């Protein structure tokens, strides 16, 4: 009898000790988790609660982590846009300041009568061109902002693209001839029915050709429109300077410029705009290029059956 009593007392003491131990561990764990959550609350979304898979708190810890990660992902998207905008603002101030200051330089020279006669008219003409370039740049910038803030209203409807393309390209012919660029344009007679926003489509094609004319130093351009499976395919090839392999990967990214540190360059927005417009019309755009041998852009738009 005495023996039983001793055993049961011992068992009680042992179990009390064990439960004390467990309670202490749980308390410690909870306070650790609270500390992490406080850190997350104060803005550190990279903090995680670490837990071994067999631990009692593991499911709770993993759920909380999942939640933190999903919020953090959303936040990081915001932060990235913010970062891009910040970068854009700095590069903008440079990209606008340089041409604008140069323009002022010409007008000042005229104003202070540094030049006279025919030189004076010349200067005014240069200033006028520069002003136009600047306006064009600002237009592009505006488009880009609108595209990125989803404010651009697209009116996607079924249009006949072959005729549309033909009309657009006919406007380019005098410019190409003036720049002494050989051209080969192939557009079939049959109609191509595609769901497009007409303005957007025109901007895509115009942008691509403008790029060739302004930056590629090509003397030949080829534009071929054809049917490929259930898509309309437009292949635009030039024989210009081409694009470095390293640059090719980033060419559709915002603010990417191939030639760094120079003054004569595009805004770095043109191809980004093209890319976003194509995406919005459910099309696709790919680029191939060999340095020194020219560049090929391939556009695909699904045909309406």
């Amino acid at each position, binding site marked *: 009898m005495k023996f039983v009593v001793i055993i049961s007392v011992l068992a009680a003491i042992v179990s009390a000790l064990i439960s004390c131990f467990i309670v202490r561990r749980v308390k410690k764990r909870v306070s650790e988790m609270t500390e992490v959550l406080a850190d997350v609350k104060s803005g550190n979304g990279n903090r995680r609660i*670490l837990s071994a898979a067999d631990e009692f708190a593991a499911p709770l810890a993993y759920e909380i*982590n999942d939640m933190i990660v999903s919020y*953090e992902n959303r936040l990081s998207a915001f932060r990235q846009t913010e970062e891009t905008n910040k970068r854009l603002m700095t590069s903008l101030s440079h990209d606008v300041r340089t041409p604008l200051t*140069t323009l002022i330089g*010409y007008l*000042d020279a005229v104003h202070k009568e540094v030049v006279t006669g025919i030189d004076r008219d010349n200067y005014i003409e240069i200033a006028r061109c520069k002003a136009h370039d600047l306006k064009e740049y600002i237009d592009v910038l505006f488009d880009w902002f609108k595209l990125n803030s989803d404010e651009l209203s697209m009116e996607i409807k079924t249009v006949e693209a072959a005729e549309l393309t033909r009309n657009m390209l006919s406007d380019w012919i005098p410019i190409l001839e003036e720049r002494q660029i050989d051209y080969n344009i192939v557009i079939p007679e049959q109609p191509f029915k595609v769901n497009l926003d007409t303005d957007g489509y025109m901007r895509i094609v115009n942008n691509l050709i403008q790029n060739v004319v302004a930056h590629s130093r090509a003397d030949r351009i080829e534009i071929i429109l054809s049917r490929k499976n259930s898509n309309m395919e437009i292949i635009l090839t030039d024989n210009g300077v081409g694009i470095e392999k390293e640059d090719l990967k980033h060419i559709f990214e915002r603010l990417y410029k191939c030639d760094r540190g*120079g*003054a004569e360059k595009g805004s770095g927005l043109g191809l980004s705009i093209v890319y976003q417009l194509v995406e919005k019309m459910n099309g696709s755009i790919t680029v191939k290029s060999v340095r020194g041998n020219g560049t090929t852009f391939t556009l695909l738009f699904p045909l309406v059956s």
Partner: protein
Amino acid sequence: MDYIIETENLTKKYGAVISVADLSLHVEKGKIYGLLGRNGAGKTTTMKMLLGLTRPTSGVIRIWGKALWGNEKKLLPRIGSLIEAPGFYPNLTAAENLHIFATLRGVPGRHAIKDALDLVSLPYKDQKLFSEYSLGMKQRLAIALAIMHDPELLILDEPINGLDPIGIAEVRLLLRRLCEKGGKTIFISSHILSEVSLLADVIGIIDKGILLEEESLAQLEQKSSKYIHFTVSDTAQAARILEQSFQEKQFTIRDDHNIQLYHSALPVTKIVSVFVENGLEVSEAHTCEGSLEEHFKRITGGEGIA
């Protein structure tokens, strides 16, 4: 400025040999910091001290603003690390090896081991033992271990050692993504200048245990890019003259008085004299040139880095 890692006069002596001397590092949040130096410059020793693997002879280490000494239990689980050669148990598979460390430290999710292996493109269900792994695969596993618990800070010692060119590009992309999308802070060391300049935002150059320079890549590029800098009374006129008299169009106007001319082979004196002829005051004109290599050569005293 709050730094993730901050050291003050960190010094480590092995006997009479000074491995790291008076090192004061500053690693900012969300940046990739590249510690550049030759083999034996003290990079690994520095990292070991940051991880509490080696006790500094003197100096202070603060991580997240807290002294490392005495707070290891709180600070180290938030750090992922890779030091020197990958160290794993040769008789176990990749997943079993990671399982050991996951059990000891804890992981943030149920599939953390698989996710980590996926990120470094190693197979999860593979019976291949660590001893049968190639050098590149071992290195990948070490990176997987470093990122398995989704740490806020990564301390990676020569992370691209032993990787093939494709692997290097993958790891570079992975680290960039962790930093840009994930907001992680990354501290890497390397003896390859081109690698650091491709990856890092801030570069610290260490030579014979001494930190020679600590600067952002942008600043360094500024220092090392080729251009002529003019400080003049009127940048508008300077720009006009460059265009009209020299047919130079590659310039950037910094503000009302500073203009930089790129890719020009013209002698500076000639440009200055034309500026002066046109009634401009030129208070400064200098050429900035030289590649990063040349810059490093200069500051390491002629021997170069890699």
